[in-house]
């Protein structure tokens, strides 16, 4: 299989700081991969190395089969930096027209690109008057130029409202469907879970896990929380019947490992009249994320 982005044993140090240690990662055509991690986990550094902005110390990086930062690589890679900025004196239209010309495309395409990100009305206003969300959309518009093979997006949805976020992910889905690879970083697992194919969690410069959300759930094997509501007056009985349960306001709460879940549910069902309701809470995305990203005692 050929990958649009292939990283093997990538290492980067800044002085004594190990920004990235033996990072390996591959993104196939049409695949959407989310890069997660705390501030300082190495997400932005990894992206800058992929873009050829920062040199790396060891390991191999291949972008569309070329060396990162080479002309061939830059021709087919789009980037959206974190907190993207533009010259305030230019209008959105002029800025996008400039980027189009740098990619050897006609400047007339700017209107269409800005319309795709919902900025048609503001295209002729100076970027200095834009809100953060609007600047972010200009950033998205320039990332869409010329059907890139690989999109590197550093926290692309920061500053966007929920509706814009949904539109943005819809745009990404379209690009991925056409065969583009997408590598995006985010702080929020809840946001990317349904919109990406794979999650890579970085912690202190190391890949701590890499897989689909279902795989991560399995790997983490975090306990499932159950809340059993008792029928009137049966709370003590219920607590006695379920070892390890703690009584609370309306019933009892208990936790169990994933593999014991069905057994426990069967037992609760067998308690018959004592039980009014059962609430099953699988580990939340935040729990899973914390589990992986805090391995190093952070």
């Amino acid at each position, binding site marked *: 299989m050929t990958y649009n982005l292939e990283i093997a044993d990538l290492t980067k140090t800044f002085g004594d700081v190990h920004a990235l240690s033996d990072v390996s990662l591959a993104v196939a055509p049409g695949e959407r991969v989310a890069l997660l991690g705390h501030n300082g986990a190495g997400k932005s550094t990894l992206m800058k190395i992929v873009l050829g902005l920062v040199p790396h110390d060891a390991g191999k990086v291949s972008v569309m089969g070329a060396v990162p930062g080479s002309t061939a690589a830059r021709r087919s*890679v*789009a980037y959206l*930096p974190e907190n993207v900025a533009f010259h305030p004196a230019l209008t959105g239209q*002029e800025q996008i027209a400039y980027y189009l010309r*740098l990619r*050897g495309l006609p400047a007339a395409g700017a209107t269409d690109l800005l319309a795709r990100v919902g900025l048609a009305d503001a295209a002729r206003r100076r970027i200095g008057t834009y809100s953060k969300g609007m600047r972010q959309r200009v950033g998205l518009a320039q990332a869409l130029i010329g059907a890139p093979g690989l999109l590197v997006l550093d926290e692309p949805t920061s500053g966007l409202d929920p509706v814009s976020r949904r539109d943005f992910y819809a745009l990404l889905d379209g690009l991925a469907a056409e065969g583009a690879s997408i590598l995006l970083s985010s702080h929020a697992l809840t946001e990317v879970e349904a919109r990406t194919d794979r999650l890579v969690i970085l912690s202190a410069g190391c890949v701590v896990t890499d897989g689909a959300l279902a795989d991560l759930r399995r790997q983490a094997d975090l306990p499932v929380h159950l809340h059993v509501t008792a029928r009137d007056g049966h709370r003590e009985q219920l607590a006695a019947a379920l070892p390890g349960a703690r009584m609370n306001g309306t019933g009892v709460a208990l936790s169990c490992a994933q593999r014991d879940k069905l057994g426990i549910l069967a037992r609760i069902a067998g308690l018959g009249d004592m039980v009014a309701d059962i609430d099953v809470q699988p580990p939340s995305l935040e729990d899973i994320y914390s589990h992986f990203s805090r391995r190093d005692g952070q």
Partner: protein
Amino acid sequence: MTRILATAAVEFRIALRNRWVAIAIAMMALFSVVLSAAGSAPTGALGADRLSVTVASLTSLAVYLVPLVALLMSFDGVAGEVERGTLPLLLTYPVTRSEVLAGKLLAHLGVLGLAVLVGYAIAAAAAIAVEPAAVQGLPALWRLMWSSALLGAAFLCLGYALSALARRPAGAAGLAIALWLVMIVLYDLGLLAAVVADGGGWFTTQVFPWLLLANPADAFRLFNLAASEATAAAAGIGGAANAIPAWQALTSVLAWPLLALALAVAAFRRVTP
């Protein structure tokens, strides 16, 4: 080439919106008007036409003003992009750093050229209006114009180099002012002091001409004064102009923009976004 032109178009637009075009033109025009007014005294005794005398005065003006305007426009060239955070994105585009600098140079040189053109045209018009025979001095004015552009190019590139070295606009501005002071003001004062102390010895005859050629501003002045008939009307440095052939001064004026551009590109390459 498309990428250089695209960059130049954007930079020119930014210069226009930042009022740099207006400021540069107004500055050159104002100084030219003042100079023309001050130089309107009778010049028959010098045996040169009025425009040639004006050109000699404009040369002294340009030596100060052209580098200053060039440095003011260019100090932000790289540092501004770093500060605004626009550089990383730009460098992920299929454009080389030399193309980016070439585009900026083209735009800023256009602004400077426009300012020089307007300023000198005002002075020339004033001279010819008073004395129609002054049209004889037009070749000298034309020479001053293109050599001013070359001088400007040299200082624009030096400004980019400082901008890339400083990486912060405030630091770059400080360096640019320091460079202007040293190269335009203190350099000549230092040379003058050395020549006076030397009293016509080895330094004055052997080293001094080369030191003059080594500074683009001095080379520019020498070239324009040596080529002009009205040298005597000009500054004290005119005396040296007779000792140095015009082609040597021209070589320096031509070589400096290239050297400075190479410096700027080398400094820009060291900037990690």
